């Protein structure tokens, strides 16, 4: 392989790369979220018919589902970086895992919050100990636990390893959330979340949902890289390149 990936794996070389990528991710994020919101509010029906009619509040779907997807996906990303850090002992991987965690926690909270605001008009309650709601709440506590454990250990390398192990054990929650449907057949029982089939969704609704999902994804890239640059500066503050950077001023 001609490209040497380990060259980018050093914090010193990734710091400026992240700085140049952040504005690009912000532009894509604004375009995607603008498109998704416009499509979701103006190119879709006000009400959904069918046996289980949904009124205007179904528009919460355009943030609820993308936030829930991102909450699970960012956890997988965080565990991936934590595992790479444990196996290869690369500093940047642990920093990546640290940088993703708060954004993942925010999307998990938003999935729960928007779900509550959808649940109240549709099910008559903000909260229920439904399998999917409960397992998503556990995922939120796992993010909080990862952040809290990391900040509770003074030695940053030990903190990295301990928090990485917690994150890896917690990965079990992602498939649990995915399959947490207590009622596979809606004709048999009333379930809060039913098995979903993306091919059954109206094209305009699916398009808005996907635009918002990719918008949240690029948003996560932008905020994670911003946080990563702060973490790199703090951890590498004794190194020569950070001193040079502070001397000359940082363009990116």
């Amino acid at each position, binding site marked *: 392989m001609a490209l040497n990936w380990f060259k980018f794996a050093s914090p010193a070389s990734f710091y400026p790369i992240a700085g140049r990528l952040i504005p690009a991710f912000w532009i894509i994020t604004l375009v995607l979220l603008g498109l998704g919101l416009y499509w979701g509010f103006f190119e879709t029906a006000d009400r959904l018919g069918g046996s289980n009619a949904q009124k*205007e509040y179904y*528009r*919460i779907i355009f943030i609820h589902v993308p936030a829930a997807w991102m909450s699970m996906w960012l956890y997988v990303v965080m565990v991936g970086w934590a595992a790479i850090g444990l196996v290869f002992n690369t500093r940047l991987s642990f920093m990546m895992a640290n940088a993703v965690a708060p*954004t993942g926690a925010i999307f998990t909270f938003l999935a729960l919050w*928007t779900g509550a605001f959808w649940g*109240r008009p549709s099910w008559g309650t903000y909260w229920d100990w439904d399998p999917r709601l409960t397992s998503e709440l556990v995922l939120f506590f796992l993010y909080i636990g990862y952040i809290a454990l990391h900040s509770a250990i003074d030695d940053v390398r030990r903190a990295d390893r301990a928090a990485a192990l917690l994150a890896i054990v917690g990965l079990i929650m992602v498939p649990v959330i995915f399959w947490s449907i207590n009622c596979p057949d809606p004709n048999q029982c009333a379930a809060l979340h039913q098995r979903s089939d993306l091919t059954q969704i109206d094209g305009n609704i699916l398009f808005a949902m996907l635009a918002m999902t990719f918008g949240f994804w690029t948003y996560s890239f932008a905020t994670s890289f911003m946080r990563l640059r702060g973490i790199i*500066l703090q951890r590498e*503050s004794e190194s020569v390149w950070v001193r040079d950077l502070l001397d000359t001023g940082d363009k990116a």
Partner: protein
Amino acid sequence: MSDFFAQGGYAFFVWGAYGMTALLLVIEVLQLRARQRTIRARLGRLMRIRDAGANDQ
């Protein structure tokens, strides 16, 4: 226009969900920008203190 904001009588739920999302995402970005400035200012100050100490000797 007011129809749009009313959301068929579900304004509280629709805007409650979207409002919290917008609020948290904006706060996260502002907090990250402030954090980066604080870190750079602190490191710069530490460096100047160290340089001044080296010159005194």
